[in-house]
């Protein structure tokens, strides 16, 4: 067999181009904004945010739920590809996993910051202290702590286990290129992997096992936020369908981001051969399907909501859909459910100039849906006076922009340091294709 994956390794080993440096510079500027916004929260307290009674949640929870949605859809996609041994996994698996990890890192910032006194987050851990205080395991705050921690660790493990053999390849290539320092770095991360057939066998078992365990974890990660809403008495939130709604409408965001990333990466890293037109076709159709599923969730919301007997609940939905919240609601429907439908056209979904904006806008649409639930859900309540509205402050915008930069920077670094496409799986697939050709 031939060495088919050389371009993938070279993409990670060659020096960065000016466009890469510019992108890193832009992200670094965003990280400065993030640092300033975080510092503002730490020094002045959560009062720098615009949320206050009745709007106890604002940008912090919208962004948290949004990032979790992106991470979930990307991980779900990667896990299913691994478990089904789908051909698409060779192309997009690695960066779907990386996107999930980057999104989780962005999401994990929020719950820590909105604790108010983030440095006391360890109070949610069960450990003996002189105060004699212990966390309450019936509390959603404690669930959240364990949920987010497990999510971050398991997503990292999923990404890292799949990466070990490719890190070993990078080590050998860097050593062959005479870059000893780099080779040592890769070598440490590769844990002495030497490609033993017995090791491969156990490695694949571990990889698939973790992929299988990612699935139940994802369901949990997104539904627990929705459950916290559903357990309140606010009419727009007190809905049994909310967990399902949040999971399903979250799909276009993660898949849209993976699609946009695939389109950018294949051009930026010259990986057209590994992420080919057929792969882009499948991904585009998948995003369109996710949009369709989200559309059904919205239709269900309208149908069930307006059939509701309780007038307060109906009024709350009407305010979101037809009243003051209409622009956010229909913006969400348009961007995350309707717009992706253009990807059914083969001509359109093969053009990077189309799929990148459609993918990013689908994610933006999901953000609008989270705004519609979190902020506009409070337009009508049992309380008579809800006149005080919510408007995000500069610190909140800074945090949102900052986490987007953090996400982008994490992916840029991943794209440069580790192979963007799973090399061992590509080799495997190519050798199988060769064998089939010979049989014919």
């Amino acid at each position, binding site marked *: *067999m*031939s*060495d*088919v*994956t*050389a371009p993938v390794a070279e993409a990670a080993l060659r020096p960065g181009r000016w466009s890469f440096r510019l992108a890193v510079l832009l992200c670094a500027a965003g990280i400065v904004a993030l640092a300033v916004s975080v510092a503002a929260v730490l020094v002045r307290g959560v009062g720098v945010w615009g949320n206050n009674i009745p709007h106890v949640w604002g940008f912090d929870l919208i962004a948290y739920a949004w990032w979790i949605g992106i991470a979930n859809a990307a991980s779900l996609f990667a896990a299913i590809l691994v478990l089904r041994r789908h051909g698409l996994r060779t192309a997009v698996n690695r960066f779907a996993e990386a996107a999930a990890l980057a999104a989780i890192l962005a999401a994990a910032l929020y719950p820590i910051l909105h604790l108010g006194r983030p440095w006391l987050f360890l109070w949610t851990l*069960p450990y003996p202290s002189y105060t*004699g*205080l*212990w*966390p*309450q*395991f*019936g509390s959603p705050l404690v*669930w959240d702590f*364990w*949920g987010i*921690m*497990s999510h971050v*660790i*398991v997503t990292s*493990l*999923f990404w*890292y*286990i799949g990466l070990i*053999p490719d890190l*070993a*390849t990078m*080590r*050998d*290539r860097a*050593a*062959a290129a005479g870059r000893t320092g780099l080779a040592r770095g890769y070598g440490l991360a590769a*844990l*002495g*992997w*030497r*490609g*033993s*057939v*017995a*090791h*491969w*066998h*156990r*490695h*694949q*078992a*571990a990889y698939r*096992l*973790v992929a299988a*365990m990612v699935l*139940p*974890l994802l369901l*949990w990660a997104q539904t627990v936020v929705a459950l916290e809403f559903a357990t309140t008495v606010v009419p727009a939130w007190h809905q049994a369908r909310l967990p399902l709604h949040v999971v399903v409408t979250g799909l276009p965001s993660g898949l849209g981001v993976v699609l946009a990333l695939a389109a950018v990466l294949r051009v930026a890293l010259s990986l057209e051969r590994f992420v080919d037109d057929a792969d882009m076709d499948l991904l585009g159709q998948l995003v369109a399907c996710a949009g369709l599923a989200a559309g059904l969730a919205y239709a269900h919301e309208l149908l069930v909501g307006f059939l509701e007997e309780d007038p307060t609940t109906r009024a709350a939905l009407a305010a979101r859909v037809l009243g003051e919240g209409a622009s956010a609601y229909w913006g969400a429907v348009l961007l995350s459910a309707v717009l992706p439908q253009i990807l059914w056209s083969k001509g359109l979904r093969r053009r990077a100039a189309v799929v990148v904006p459609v993918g990013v806008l689908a994610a933006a649409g999901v953000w609008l849906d989270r705004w519609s639930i979190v902020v506009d859900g409070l337009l009508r309540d049992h309380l008579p006076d809800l006149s005080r509205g919510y408007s995000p402050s500069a610190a909140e915008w800074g945090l949102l922009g900052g986490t987007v930069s953090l996400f982008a920077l994490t992916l840029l670094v991943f794209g440069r340091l580790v192979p963007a496409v799973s090399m*061992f*799986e590509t*080799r*495997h697939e190519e*050798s199988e294709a060769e064998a089939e050709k010979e049989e014919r």
Partner: protein
Amino acid sequence: MSQPPPFGLMAEFTEAEPMTKAVRRARAAGWTRLEAYSPYPVPEAAEALGVSAAPVGLIALAAGAVGAALAAGTAWYVSVHLYPVNVGGRPLNAWPAFMPTTYLVAILWACAAALVGMLALNGLPRLNHPAFFARGFERAGRDRFFLFLSAEDPLYDAEAAARFLAGLSPLRVSEVRGA
């Protein structure tokens, strides 16, 4: 000063199929200290080597069960004994409310154990291995397949082993020595 004895012999192949066949032949000939290397998973060769992946799953399962028991036990002990809070007369042992953390910790432990167990069974991490001294071994991570017969095998005899490997039509056979 005399040279140290070799670590063993390495045969190099260009395809997975002949390497798998070579593993089968070596096992049939009674070799026990042998290792095969490939750039991607070759389950048939692993089977021929008599390697089972089941222990990885068992370790993960056991760790998941321990994690779940630990999480549920902690929640119960904290809520019932260490810091009981009476909320409207509800039972202190509110086990359904303890399930979310139990479930999460079980998954966390199982996933961590899958990685740690896989590494432990593989004898990793380690800083070096005799195989890395073999000629052209860096291609085991790219496009070549290798079969290694260790000098520690009771059957090992440099000449006979070399003759045996040459009979498997490899690309080349080389002795593996420390640098």
